[in-house]
């Protein structure tokens, strides 16, 4: 395995980490409208991710930065090609971060309600768009011989990619509901479990179609293994949720995300962005990667930093391990 292959794996790991972690906090954002009955419950949900959402989001920045360093051409083609969807994602992430931090900083109800709708929309839209983006990456887009994207916005909105978007949206919302059941107390915990069942079924149907389509189009035996793991984990997650085993349900919905994203990367390899115009014009781990020297330095950095990050981020979850109920939310907190 050469260094650029290692980096393909590492980029996949960073995206998987991002979707695993930000997946449930996007889900929580969506659930503020779907699950919470009143504003106190909304706040319970928001506070389950309060201390961690920012750290979760850095997995995206790391994936972006690492792609820039390890595969400059992938970074350049992807972000200049998917210009407008990415712009929309950036706007959402900007507003979302501010919404969490500023929502409780004024007592006026209109102020707080506005930020609450912002949290809902800015969680929902990126949760959908990341699926669209990855659907397109896997499917292949119009890339010319100079590695430039030559399609337009409408080319990105094809049925396969849109289905991919619905899968990530449903899966993240399910993952969020399972997380809510694990992290809350009282009535909302019960309702989170009930909603998780329904979301789980919807996710299972959508994911089966999308992953099956991917397997039929691009798959091989290893991607089939990942597909099976994803589907089995999802079904098991729904079962664990029904059995009231919330920790297991969350771990299993996490494994679903890991396996599903891993499957997409497996079908991609050794391409990083296939061209739908001509197979020879695809960006691959060899023609899009950095020099061996840069990759070596980056390997040292990632090899040391990533495990440490996992340790201290894991510690954070342990510090905030207590469940939250409406009784824990101070009335006049702003």
């Amino acid at each position: 395995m050469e260094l650029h292959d290692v980096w393909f794996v590492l980029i996949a790991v960073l995206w998987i980490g991002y979707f695993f972690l930000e997946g449930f906090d996007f889900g929580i954002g969506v659930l503020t409208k779907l699950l919470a009955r009143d504003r106190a419950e909304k706040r319970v949900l928001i506070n389950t991710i309060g201390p961690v959402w920012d750290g979760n989001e850095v997995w995206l920045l790391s994936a972006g930065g690492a792609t820039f360093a390890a595969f400059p051409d992938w970074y350049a083609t992807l972000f200049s090609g998917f210009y407008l969807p990415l712009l929309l994602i950036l706007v959402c992430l900007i507003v979302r971060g501010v919404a969490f931090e500023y929502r409780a900083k004024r007592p006026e109800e209109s102020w707080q309600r506005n930020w609450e709708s912002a949290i809902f929309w800015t969680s929902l839209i990126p949760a959908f768009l990341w699926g669209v983006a990855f659907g397109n990456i896997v499917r292949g887009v119009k890339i010319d011989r100079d590695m430039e994207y030559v399609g337009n916005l409408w080319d990105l909105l094809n049925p396969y990619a849109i289905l991919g978007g619905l899968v990530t949206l449903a899966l993240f919302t399910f993952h969020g509901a399972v997380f809510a059941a694990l992290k809350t107390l009282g009535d909302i915990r019960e309702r989170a479990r009930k909603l998780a069942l329904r979301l789980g079924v919807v996710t299972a149907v959508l994911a089966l179609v999308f992953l099956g389509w991917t397997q039929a189009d691009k798959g091989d035996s290893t991607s089939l293994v990942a597909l099976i793991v994803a589907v089995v984990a999802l079904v098991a997650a729904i079962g664990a949720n029904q059995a009231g085993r919330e920790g297991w349900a969350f771990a299993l919905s996490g494994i679903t995300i890991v396996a599903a994203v891993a499957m997409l990367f497996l079908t991609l390899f050794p391409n990083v962005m296939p061209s739908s115009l001509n197979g020879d014009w695809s960006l691959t781990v060899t023609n899009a990667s950095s020099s061996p020297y840069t990759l070596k330095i980056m390997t040292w950095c990632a090899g040391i930093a990533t495990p440490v990050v996992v340790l201290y981020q894991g510690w954070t979850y342990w510090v905030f391990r207590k469940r939250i109920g409406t009784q824990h939310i101070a009335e006049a907190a702003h």
Partner: protein
Amino acid sequence: MDLALAPETLARWQFGITTVYHFLFVPLTISLAALTAGLETAWVRTGKEKYLRATKFWGKLFLINIAMGVVTGIVQEFQFGMNWSDYSRFVGDVFGAPLAFEALIAFFFESTFIGLWIFGWDKLPKKIHLACIWMVSIGTLLSAYFILAANSWMQHPVGYRINEQRGRAELTDFWLVLTQNTTLNQVFHSFSAAFLTGGAFMVGIAAFHLMRKKHIPVMRTSLRLGLVTLAVGGLFTAVSGDTLGKVMYEQQPMKMAAAEALWEGESPAPFSVFAYGDVDKGHNKVALEIPGLLSFLSHSDFESYVPGINDTNEALQEKFGPGDYKPIVPVAYWGFRWMIGFGMASLSLGLLGLWLTRKRFLLPAAVRTGEDEVPHLVLLKKPLGRRLTRLYWLLALWTMAFPLIANAWGWIFTEMGRQPWVVYGVLQTRDAVSPGVSQGEIITSMIVFTTLYAALAVIEVKLLAKYVKAGPPELTEADLNPPTKIGGDSRDADKPMAFSY
């Protein structure tokens, strides 16, 4: 295509707008993180309540500010790929590495420990809670270091080779990129300017409260801390600015010639105080100059030759082929002056304030004040009158943002002064834009970002003003009895969280 609406022009405007805006928050974040950490350290070590109240007050302003710094930073990470894809392809092998290091090492640090700090008041023992804010502070500094190393490479590329076959620059010595003198000087200059900024911010707000005789013990402490930070930060900014200038005379003579609007080389060269140029004709119409000073600033003696814009342009044409290698001279010239002017105005105010509020052993007994009194401003032996005192407080308040202006012009100067290069001597800006991104797309994103940023600026400033006016919070029972166990003491399972969104 009309040059004013060419993708290159628009992409440059967008980069300028988003980056200057981002950098309004960065220096305040860097300095307030460290200052808040210092105040919390004082609380942990002395147990004096005024330090805890100060920590909470400045910590809140810090959080309002860092939220904006973080979210506008996301754009920075991705806009190279969006608007500057040819740049990304050409330099990614070199430039990407420090960016990835920044994310993997610094961003994770900052954002994980800030969450622990915000929500950890009733979950972490005192000392661990304190350690978290120091981790945030280290994260902000590391982050700035890596991005400045990346920028320094654009100013003065080292440790790379050109791979003709792949048509790109490739890294050969990462350590050199991290430690070359451009990097070290830029880091020194930016860090000290960050503390100048935070110091002025603290002084301005403390002055506002002291003028109204409110929250005196906390604001007295804050004033002192702010003044020392402002003065030390300001002095280091001046010193590092001078050394960075000398480095730039060696590495980018054109930038420095433009900074002085020095059209023809001179020996000894004068420092220009005011000039109005006739740019097309390559000379100044009006100029007011201090003889010999420029020679000193560039080479530490009053005699030596300093090359001018026209001779440097000819030298560059010889080296790189025909073309115009001049930046926009008035922008460089005035940017340089505004950077120095606004920064040094704040420094002077800080030095003056430090003297006026000097420690008791330097003061006659009659004008000394206690911990809960507004300090007298004493020029010689007697306190200043009511009007002059008020004038000083007002000046401190109204010049609070001067360093922000200086910072912005500093970046505009150093980036526009490097033009037409994006990587000096290696890649020109016009060759760096995304060829596949349409004019419509760039215009869309520019409108979106500008509108969003403007709206957020209004929200942020109003929120800051609200919390500034509210003053330091009263302490609660929970504040004074931090938990002894990680995860919080289990005295009362239904107790509300000390902090919640």
